[in-house]
């Protein structure tokens, strides 16, 4: 039963995330068609068809995700509360899912039909899609100021869809623009739309931030506040890219304006998706205003984060609990963890023992040394004066060996559990698999850095993986309570995530921008610097 709930709980999260993404893509495409492409002229057929196709495909996936989300949630309710189908059918999330599903079908039908006039008829289902999403947001469940909060959430989500959801369509349209002049027109129109959207989402975000975070102390004292601050930082990064675009259009060399705009657009899409992931992560947390106890104070953060010498002595395997899972289960069954709220399938949390914390710190600090060396060597390699520095990706091999040895101390070669027996444990198997993947990444990037691989696409794997790792760090699961350790862990992971996202997308832009764009030179120094800084942050990682 618990395992089944865990599976369906996991699936419902997956479907929810996909729903948020595809609704942004579907609605963003519709807004793009209506406000940027505007009219259905003969020479724009290729752009319109490509946009309609993408909107239709987004709507198809959205419809499937809506249904899947409702089914998974219904199954959880049925299994965990023994509820009848009739009872479940009246729930708010079922109604919201049904509205979203019907609206998505409507979009599919309207984008399939041949048309000669405008696209304003797509606005109605777009509004319905947004409404279905708002119906399952924080705002609907609030006790005070419910109506204004619902209105601001709707504005915030609509602006996000128009801007971030519209960006892929801008790239699609630029590629198919009949003339460079028209491509510039599209950029100018999208720029206006983006400016209006940014203003709207920032204003609505400010109001929502004030309502859900409440005070400056909650910004650093709670996970929710810290995640909101991260979202604001990433938003700032997007605005910075927008400013670079603006600068480029005004002063850049005419020959490379469009090519550069496309590349910045790609990075904006990537960072935009990271912002959506951060927003999705926020919805897993109760608003900071509701968690008034056990907040982390400024002094506690200072005590935890102030620089100390790294830990280079590890506790022995014998000092660690024999089986973390068994210890966790025991604590839960004894009732010592039952004070927390938790989701079906979850089993609460057990505080790590001092030995476990020391083990983890030791791991982070050695990883920090490896990553710092990689960043510094990459920086030297970028300067082009030391040829052997290009071999920096080989340091990944050390990281892989370290991961293999230290990730599962209860198993071979450190622990009593034999090598073959560990392969039956999916978690250990994944760790082993990951160690192999890191070796593959080392070999891959080493070939790129030493000039053995010159293909454009192969070179992009490394920046994508770095950026994706950063996004993942922002989307991991959170405790429902205001556990201080969870908040402090969150605060130590956020700088890593932001640095990884910056490193990934600056490397991407370095590789993708046309050679005449001078920003490339700055970016070529920026990403190794970010990697080195990740190493520094890891070296100061603390759990106690």
């Amino acid at each position: 039963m618990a395992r089944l709930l865990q599976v369906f709980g996991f699936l419902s999260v997956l479907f929810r995330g996909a729903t948020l993404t595809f609704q942004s893509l579907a609605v963003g495409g519709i807004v793009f068609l209506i406000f940027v492409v505007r009219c259905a002229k003969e020479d724009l057929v290729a752009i319109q068809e490509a946009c309609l196709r993408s909107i239709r495909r987004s709507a198809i996936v959205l419809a499937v995700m809506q249904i899947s989300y409702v089914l998974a949630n219904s199954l959880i309710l049925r299994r965990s509360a023994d509820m009848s189908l009739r009872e479940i059918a009246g729930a708010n999330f079922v109604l919201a899912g049904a509205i979203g599903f019907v609206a998505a079908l409507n979009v599919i039908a309207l984008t399939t039909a041949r048309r000669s006039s405008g696209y304003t008829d797509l606005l109605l289902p777009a509004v319905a899609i947004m409404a279905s999403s708002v119906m399952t947001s924080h705002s609907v469940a609030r006790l005070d100021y419910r109506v204004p909060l619902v209105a601001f959430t709707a504005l915030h989500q609509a602006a996000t869809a128009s801007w971030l959801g519209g960006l892929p369509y801008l790239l699609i349209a630029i590629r198919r623009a009949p003339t460079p002049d028209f491509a510039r027109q599209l950029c100018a129109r999208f720029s206006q739309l983006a400016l209006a959207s940014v203003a709207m989402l920032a204003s609505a975000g400010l109001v929502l931030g004030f309502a859900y975070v409440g005070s400056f102390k909650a910004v650093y004292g709670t996970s929710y506040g810290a995640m909101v601050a991260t979202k604001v930082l990433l938003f700032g990064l997007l605005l910075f890219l927008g400013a670079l675009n603006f600068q480029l259009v005004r002063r850049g060399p005419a020959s490379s304006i469009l090519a550069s705009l496309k590349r910045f657009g790609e990075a904006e899409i990537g960072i935009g998706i990271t912002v959506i992931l951060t927003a999705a992560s926020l919805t897993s947390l109760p608003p900071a205003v509701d968690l008034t106890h056990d907040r982390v104070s400024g002094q506690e953060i200072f005590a935890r984060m102030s620089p100390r010498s790294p830990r280079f002595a590890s506790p022995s395997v014998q000092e660690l609990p024999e089986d973390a899972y068994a210890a966790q289960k025991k604590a839960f069954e004894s009732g010592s963890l039952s004070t927390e709220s938790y989701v079906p399938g979850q089993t609460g949390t057990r505080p790590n023992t001092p030995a476990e914390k020391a083990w983890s710190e030791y791991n982070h600090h050695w990883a920090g040394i490896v990553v710092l060396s990689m960043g510094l060597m990459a920086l030297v390699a970028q300067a082009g004066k030391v040829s052997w520095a290009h071999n920096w990706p080989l340091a990944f091999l050390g990281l892989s060996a370290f991961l293999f040895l230290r990730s599962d101390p209860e198993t071979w070669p450190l622990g009593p559990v034999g090598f073959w027996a560990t392969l039956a444990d999916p978690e250990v198997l994944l760790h082993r698999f990951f160690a192999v993947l890191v070796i593959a990444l080392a070999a891959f990037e080493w070939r790129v850095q030493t000039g053995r691989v010159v293909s454009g696409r192969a070179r992009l794997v490394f920046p994508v993986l770095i950026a994706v790792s950063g996004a993942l760090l922002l989307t991991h699961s959170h405790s429902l309570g205001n556990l201080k350790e969870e908040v402090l862990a969150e605060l130590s992971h956020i700088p890593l995530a932001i640095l990884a996202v910056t490193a990934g997308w600056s490397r991407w832009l370095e590789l993708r921008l046309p050679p005449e764009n001078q920003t490339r030179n700055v970016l070529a120094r920026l990403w190794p610097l970010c990697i080195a800084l990740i190493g520094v942050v890891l070296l100061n990682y603390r759990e106690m």
Partner: protein
Amino acid sequence: MLSLQRRSNELAIYPGFCIIFFSGRRPAFTELFANLGEEEIMPPGRRSLCAIILSAAVVAFLIVAPAVAHAILLESNPPLKSAVSGPDVPIKLRFNVRIDALRSRLTLIHPDGSAQALEINKQTPADTLSAEATGLAPGTYRLRWQVLASDGHITRGEIPFTVTPS
């Protein structure tokens, strides 16, 4: 060695990593990265599909760990690990958000391990669940609650308490 919470975070990361890694080797995925805005290698339709796949891959496969908004218990009667006098114990739980009381459940676990479903009162504030537990013998009880918040998300928890003779 990590706590289960941290382990589940880690587990969340690896599948996403693997999927992206291998997707990166598929032609459709790499073409998308390599040729955005350059000469036509893929037909336009396929490119659009790839644009969608890109977003899907990054978000649908990578949002693996975050859950959705959940109700948290702000206060309860009986309070957590408290002693209350029996045999009748009024039960009241207050949450941080609106609760769908019709689709929420309260179950009392008796000292002998048997479970009793409690009838939830209909006339309560939107953020509160209340019920009456009657005829309780002295002993240790656990009140299990499961709520559906108005935003569609399910949370559960447990409140251990002791009933003393009146």
